[in-house]
């Protein structure tokens, strides 16, 4: 299942996975399981229950941490979205009166499968988030990360405090200001100039592709559902043909969900990852702006012959910060390139192989049915 990112969870010193999860009404409770050889943890193996909001808290604290300004912070997992199956469950309830017991049971089964698919998807995406952290040389050592993994009480108190501290202010700032700032900065380094141009352009394209892929996947799924109603109907009339349609529909369903995982989810994940990379560029651009301002302040101080040592110190600090960010940023962005290409390769291969496999299965089933129909006596 772990496919949108690769090379994760290889280091035996810290292994994380989400072996199971519970769905209670609207809330999903993930079981986060850790196996470690590191002495920083109290036990070698342990599990804790966590909610989606806990993951968001962890992500936000990492973003706020100054020391990580030069890193690509792995994108936060999206909220579990059971909208689609819930809507269908509702329709099922409404239509119950008009269906036979058999039809109702079949549809309920289908719905449960869809719930399960959404469930698996959300577990995967939360798991990958944690595994990205554990594979990162710096982030894996983060204190809050350790608390997240180990603390066996409810994290909601900490979450509340964090919210009061930051109040979502930084996030809003990043969203509205980054494009302008990043594009406006006068770049001295070729590497970053290229990266900036590339990432800004690529981001808008991948965002578009993600949206179009989602629409396509949704269409594909609703065609499959339609096929399903058709099947229920055909069971009344055309005997064996309905068997074939049911089998074909199941395969189509798998095609649609494979396409979603390998293609749509891939695009969605890297869209968010690129956003995280852009955030890094933003922070660096900000640091550069700060450095330039500190230079101006130093010039002013020299002119006025006032507070020169402080201005010099401030300028040095800004320069140091900017250099650190540039160095770390370069490393992160280069790593990101490689990671992205490898992930695309893996997923595109898997998607093509699955499409071929499913089409061959459908082809065999249809072929044998066509043969049988031919030999049917008039």
């Amino acid at each position: 299942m772990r496919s949108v990112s690769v090379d994760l969870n290889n280091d035996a010193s810290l292994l994380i996975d989400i072996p199971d999860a519970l769905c209670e009404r609207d809330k999903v409770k993930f079981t986060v399981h850790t196996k470690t050889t590191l002495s920083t943890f109290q036990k070698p193996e342990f599990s804790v229950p966590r909610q989606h909001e806990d993951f968001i808290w962890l992500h936000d604290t990492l973003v706020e941490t100054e020391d990580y300004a030069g890193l690509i912070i792995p994108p936060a997992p999206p909220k579990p979205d059971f909208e689609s199956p819930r809507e269908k469950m509702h329709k099922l309830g409404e239509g119950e009166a008009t269906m036979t017991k058999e039809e109702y049971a079949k549809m309920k089964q289908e719905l449960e499968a869809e719930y399960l698919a959404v469930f698996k998807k959300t577990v995967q995406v939360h798991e990958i988030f944690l595994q990205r952290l554990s594979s990162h040389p710096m982030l894996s050592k983060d204190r809050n990360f350790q608390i997240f993994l180990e603390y066996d009480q409810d994290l909601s108190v900490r979450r509340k405090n964090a919210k009061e501290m930051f109040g979502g202010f930084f996030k809003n700032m990043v969203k509205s200001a980054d494009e302008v700032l990043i594009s406006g900065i006068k770049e001295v380094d070729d590497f970053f100039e290229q990266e900036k141009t590339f990432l800004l352009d690529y981001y808008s394209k991948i965002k578009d592709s993600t949206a179009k892929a989602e629409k396509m996947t949704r269409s594909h799924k609703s065609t499959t559902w339609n096929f399903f109603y058709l099947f229920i109907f055909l069971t009344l009339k055309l005997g064996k043909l309905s068997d074939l349609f049911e089998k074909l529909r199941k395969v189509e369903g798998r095609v649609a969900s494979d396409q979603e995982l390998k293609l749509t989810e891939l695009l969605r994940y890297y869209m968010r990852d690129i956003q995280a990379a852009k955030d890094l560029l933003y922070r660096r651009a900000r640091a550069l702006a700060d450095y330039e301002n500190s230079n101006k302040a130093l010039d002013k101080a020299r002119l006025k012959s006032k507070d020169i040592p402080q201005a010099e110190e401030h300028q040095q600090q800004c320069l140091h910060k900017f250099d650190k960010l540039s160095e770390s940023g370069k490393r992160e962005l280069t790593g990101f390139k490689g990671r992205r290409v490898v992930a695309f390769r893996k997923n595109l291969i898997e998607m093509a192989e699955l499409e071929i496999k499913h089409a061959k299965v459908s082809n065999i089933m249809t072929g044998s049915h066509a043969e049988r129909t031919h030999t049917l006596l008039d």
Partner: protein
Amino acid sequence: FDVDVAVTNPEKVGNSLPMFRSKTFSVRRRFSDFLGLYEKLSVKQSLHGCIVPPPPEKSVVGMTKVKVGMDDPSSVEFVERRRAALERYIQRVVSHPSLLQDPDVREFLERDDLPRAVNTQALSGAGFLKMINKASDAVNKMTIKMNESDTWFEDKFQEVENEEQQLRKLHALVDSLVNHRKELCGNTAVFAKSMAMLGNSEDNTALSRALSQLAEVEDKMEQLHQEQAASDFFIFAELLADYIRLLGAVRGCFDQRMRAWQRWQEAQSTLQKKREAEAKLLWANKPEKLQQAKEEITEVTKAWEARVTQYERDFDRIGMTVRKEVLRFEKEKAKDFKSQIIKYLEAMLQSQQRLIKFWEAFLPEAKAIA
């Protein structure tokens, strides 16, 4: 509804049917001519009890678009749909042994200049099924109800009604499936374009190439979806629509038989009244007028006796025709469904094989990413 439609439908008639002048021939007919043919056939006494194939429905919306001369794919589709429907209609007519003999049918097939059809209002205005249902209601309103000794007719009629309902539901579902597939087509095409743009943006050469290839594959997928939707529609949906109308025609025959029965019953009750009048006269005992009156009454009574006999014979004949027709219809239907299903499956097989080829061509591109 006056548009020239050339139904490419050369009638190849073998030597065994010398009634036709030549082996292969074609004529140009209007849509209203087809309706006119149905009108002529449906009122013929000699064909009562026969399942006369109903013509395709008129479609105001579709026709208006074509008239306005819009060249878009939906009007092209509409014309093709109509052409295919008319072709099936005529083929059903000529495959019916009694109809093939009919002079109106032969005239329709052979005559170069066919007089304009009039009186197609009932059909073009209300549509075939509405017309059948109206007639059905009239039959049901008649007060004398039949007591069948043989339940075959009642049972069969019920079967036909049920089947018609089921096919309607199925048709609605297939229609909905077609629409969803068309939507999927649109979304796939849009996605393909987006993927092509992304491929252009990509700075890794091999990945860029792979993404462009993926865009092409998705384009081909859109085409496949398009063809699958057409297949769903032209093979499946139209088959169902035809049989919904045909079952309506079957119901029409049963109604004709009912009407024949009612006519017979009414004649019998009239005969009864005449006989009673005759008997009354015999008791009246007016010797002078008796002989003359008696002759008159006897004439009338005899005429009604003849009618009753005729109508009873008509009723029996129609009953036999209906039975024969229904059996033939069921055989034809099974054949029709089977051949259409095979066509549908074969189209699906083709589609699947092409899909496999597309993805197999893409796979090495994906593997070449480095």
